[in-house]
């Protein structure tokens, strides 16, 4: 009895997936959604990394001037701003932040993907900042001293000497952050962003069958994360090779 039930279920599987993916060219919708999802990740990542590096440099610079006699008041103010930013962003749920961006701060923006990019990017920036800060502090202090002793300014020394070396230490954590960010894009569906989950839900609603689209997009997310992880490992291996030169 149970056996025939399983056979029926398996028999239905093909048509169900057919309806969810092939019928009426629905696969195009998934591709469209996936495209928006990847776009969102890329744009949010750019915002996150830029914001993260700036915040990390401000906080590191402030930390390093603490011992000195001269203190830059502007830097102290910036440091406080950065601290508030990381505390608030890291201390509240991503979902709540997205809701606030959509309904409180930008209620007039129609393009919810754009709101999603802003929300995700600013969220990611706070985490990237902490990752980068750790990376900058892992570079031997002698490197900064050597750069400065040659007459290079603080920013030049950071840019040419400290940040490139920190990058290698940062890369694994930054890769993880990128993967988290990629998966977090699915939350944008809740504010009406037309990305992958949105189309899966729509198709599920139209065919009255939610299993195939949701399992389908889960596999898509998984494949992309596996590819990203593989790329990350490859880049790390390449950077490590340059150590042994």
């Amino acid at each position, binding site marked *: 009895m149970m056996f025939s039930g399983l056979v029926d279920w398996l028999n239905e599987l093909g048509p169900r997936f057919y309806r969810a993916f092939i019928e009426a060219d629905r696969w195009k919708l998934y591709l469209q959604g996936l495209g928006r999802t990847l776009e969102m990740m890329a744009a949010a990542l750019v915002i996150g990394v830029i914001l993260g590096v700036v915040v990390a440099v401000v906080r590191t610079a402030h930390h390093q001037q603490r011992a000195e*006699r*001269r203190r830059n008041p502007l830097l102290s103010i910036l440091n406080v701003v950065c601290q508030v930013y990381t505390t608030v962003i890291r201390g509240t749920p991503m979902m709540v932040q997205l809701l606030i961006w959509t309904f409180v701060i930008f209620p007039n923006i129609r393009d919810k993907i754009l709101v999603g990019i802003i929300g995700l990017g600013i969220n990611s920036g706070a985490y990237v900042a902490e990752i980068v800060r750790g990376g900058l502090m892992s570079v*031997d202090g002698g490197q900064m001293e*050597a750069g400065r*002793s040659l*007459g*290079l300014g603080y920013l030049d020394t950071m840019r040419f000497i400290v940040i490139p*070396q920190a990058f290698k230490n940062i890369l694994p954590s930054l890769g993880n952050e990128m993967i988290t960010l990629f998966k977090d894009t699915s939350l944008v569906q809740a504010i009406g962003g037309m990305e992958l989950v949105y189309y899966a839900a729509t198709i599920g609603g139209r065919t009255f069958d939610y299993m195939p689209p949701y399992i389908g997009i889960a596999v898509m997310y998984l494949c992309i994360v596996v590819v990203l992880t593989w790329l990350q490992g490859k880049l790390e291996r390449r950077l490590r090779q340059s150590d042994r*030169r």
Partner: protein
Amino acid sequence: MIDVKNLSKSFGKHLVLDDLSQHIHPGEKVVVLGPSGSGKSTFLRCLNLLETPTSGTITFDGVDITAPKCDIDTVRQHMGMVFQHFNLFPNMTIRKNITLAPVRTKKMSQQEADDTATQLLRRVGLEDKADAYPNQLSGGQKQRIAIVRALAMRPKVMLFDEPTSALDPEMVGEVLDVMRQLADEGMTMVVVTHEMGFAREVGSRILFMDGGHILEENRPQEFFAHPQHPRTVEFLSKVL
């Protein structure tokens, strides 16, 4: 050239330099000796403001570098420094290590800087290492490159912070040879070291420091032959 007045430095409550005054003249080779923890490295690092003095003034070429308005980056372009642990930039080739600062500070074009690098590397016998990375070099080679990197800025004075202390004994000679050559060319040098032979041979003046004070200063012959201060006598009896 460098005029130090009433220089004090403390880390928290720990007083490392206690009211030092010194004058370093052009062409002088000042060697700073003393036991570890005596403040000699801190003294040297104050000269280019890698350590900010707690009080006192330092004047370099008529410019008060301890003044809050002083642009320290410009001043440092005229003061070369060599560190105990070399501090070469591991992410760049040797050539890039040497040319980065002259090019970024607009002192030279990339072409001029490359030529200067080649010329200086030839002088220390390492021209074949221009495209190598620091990790491929021995300690002695790294330190010679570090000296070249500082020289590429054409500094008026060179500060050496225990340049041979992190080296294998057999590599000390090659670094001291470069420094000796530099001294013969008339470079103004301030050297913190434990190499007594070098101090005696190359130094034009010895400062002996302990407990944040300069206890004794003299020409090398007198310093080693007739030390005056009991602490100097004790120190020399242990190291010689």
